[in-house]
């Protein structure tokens, strides 16, 4: 093995990639076995459904179910499993039981971008502002600003996201009456043409702004509190005292010394935050009637459209794992202790 290959194999980014892939494989496997092995599993239910509702013969119903779920029911379980895994990694997640058997991956392709857009933007805004505010109040700890924002953050942290979404509609739509929420359903208005044109982009932003705002409000408190704590502990480190003693300007100390070191431990919480905010999209999108993957999942659940449910669930999980992998890599870039051994 050449030294270069070996160093890649040893590298932090590679090890984390392996870990992310292993987690994805495990999650996909769990989802397969839950659907196939549970008593009264969806495949059997669907066969019964076809038999009873359409008086379909068993073999025909079985073949149809197999096509819908993307499995070959005549094979032994382990072969089905292998086939399923291959299909998943090819992007074949089965077909919807409704909508004329539309491939699940197509449905996802239609809805996922909106969720990634709103959730991603919300996460980014709340992370950046949370970090900045948290650092700022840590510098003024003990003051009125610090205690006010700390309390406010705790409160925001405790109010569920669906309540924030409702309150936004109640306040802006009903009480103040300044935002016509009934016009803001969907991802963009019907009178614009999708593409890179200004009316479309403006419409997209208009429709997305309240979901994004909800994500920001419900997560920013957490970042503020974490960054505040982390900054306070970094401010107590010897290297800060020494940096000041070295006569470095405070702006330099605040960025390369305090900021960079205080952000590092916060990356660990990314995992939890990303999973939480993606999961919350189910509620937020249903309240704003925003056509993202969360809203679609809810529809699939209400229709008992199992392949769509399973596919969306997998995609959300993979998106979370991918986001975490990006955070991991960024963390590795920021912290030489991990990068260089």
């Amino acid at each position, binding site marked *: 093995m050449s030294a270069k290959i070996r160093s890649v194999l040893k590298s932090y980014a590679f090890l984390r990639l392996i870990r992310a892939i292993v987690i994805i494989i495990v999650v996909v496997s769990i989802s397969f076995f839950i659907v196939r092995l549970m008593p009264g599993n*969806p495949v059997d239910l669907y066969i019964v459904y076809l038999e009873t509702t359409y008086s379909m013969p068993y073999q025909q119903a079985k073949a149809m179910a197999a096509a819908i779920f993307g499995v070959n029911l005549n094979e032994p379980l382990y072969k089905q499993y292998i086939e399923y895994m291959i299909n998943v990694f090819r992007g074949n997640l089965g077909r919807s039981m409704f909508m004329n058997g539309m491939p699940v991956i197509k449905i996802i392709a239609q809805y996922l971008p909106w969720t990634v857009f709103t959730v991603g933007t919300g996460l980014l805004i709340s992370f950046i502002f949370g970090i900045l505010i948290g650092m700022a109040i840590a510098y003024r700890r003990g003051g009125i600003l610090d205690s006010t924002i700390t309390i406010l953050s705790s409160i925001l942290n405790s109010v569920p996201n669906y309540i924030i979404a409702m309150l936004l509609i109640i306040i802006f739509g009903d009480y103040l009456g300044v935002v016509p929420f009934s016009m803001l359903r969907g991802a963009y208005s019907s009178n614009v043409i999708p593409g890179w044109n200004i009316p479309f982009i403006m419409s997209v932003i208009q429709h997305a702004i309240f979901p994004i705002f909800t994500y920001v409000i419900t997560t920013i408190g957490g970042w503020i509190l974490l960054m505040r704590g982390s900054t306070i502990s970094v401010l107590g480190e010897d290297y800060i005292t020494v940096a000041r003693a070295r006569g470095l300007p405070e702006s330099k100390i605040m960025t390369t010394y305090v900021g960079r070191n205080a952000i590092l431990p916060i990356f660990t919480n990314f995992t939890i935050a990303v999973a939480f905010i993606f*999961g919350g999209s189910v509620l937020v999108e249903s309240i704003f009637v925003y056509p993202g993957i969360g809203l679609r999942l809810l529809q699939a*659940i209400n229709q008992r459209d199992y392949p769509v449910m399973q596919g969306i*669930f997998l995609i*959300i999980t993979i998106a979370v794992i991918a986001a975490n992998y990006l955070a991991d890599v960024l963390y590795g870039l920021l912290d030489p202790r991990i990068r260089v051994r």
Partner: protein
Amino acid sequence: MARASLRKTYGKALSRTKENLVEAFHALVEDKLAMSGLIILVVFVLMGLIGPFFIPPPTPSPNIYAPPSLQHPFGTDFQGEDIFAKIVYGTTSMLIIAFVTGIFITIIAVLLGSIAGYLGGYVDNVIMGFADILLAIPQLPLFLILAVLVKFLDIVSLALLISALSWPTAARAFRSQFLSLKERDFVEASRLLGFNSLEIIVYDLIPNILPYILINVVLNAVYAIYIVTSLAYLGIIPFESNNWGIMLYQAWAFGTIYNKRTFMYIMAPIGAIVFLQLGLLLFSRALEVIFNPRVRTGE
């Protein structure tokens, strides 16, 4: 003789504990936020415990969508049931599920966290591997799908299911606590004195993290309320008619926010959920004030 000496011994220890408690109480009274959290929580607990004895259970009546009045402080809903009574009757089950889940999660987390942290090696890798997988799965969608596949029957089985899937965050925190504690020499000293791992975990390590355990119960209760009201709002928990989440769903679905007369219909469950969450969160702060002298003194 032995009794007397034991009583003397523990009597002294108790008087010290009493001193500490008095000091903690003073700190609590001085911290207005912690105190208000405690008060909010006490109000909810009283409401859940003795409310049902004074307020008749909500029953359907022809008086639907009544505005707030003396007889119906928050008005009535689409079935003519008193909203205030529904909130009161929903409190008991909400508190039960919140604390049962909070305690379950914490027990599992302490157990797995302590085993992983104390034993290390392969056991640690396996437990934390599981935790990593569970952490990557968004919980709400997972519960939604599980709700379709298995039927949630009652509060306790729901609490068990939530606990079985929501322990990793807390377990990770406890694990790192155990990791740093077991490096301390007093653990080795106990080992040298012949104490076994179980004795060391129970007598040496757990007492050191007791405050965190209690705080975790409360924080996990906050989380449980979020999950349970969300599931109820989405119509996944059919067995609880007075759940605040279900009230919220009905009020929302019937568009009551656009009618001033029925405004309280939606604001009542929102208020109940927000205040209970806030009360719990501030109460966890109160616990920190009591147990952590560093918070207490603001150093």
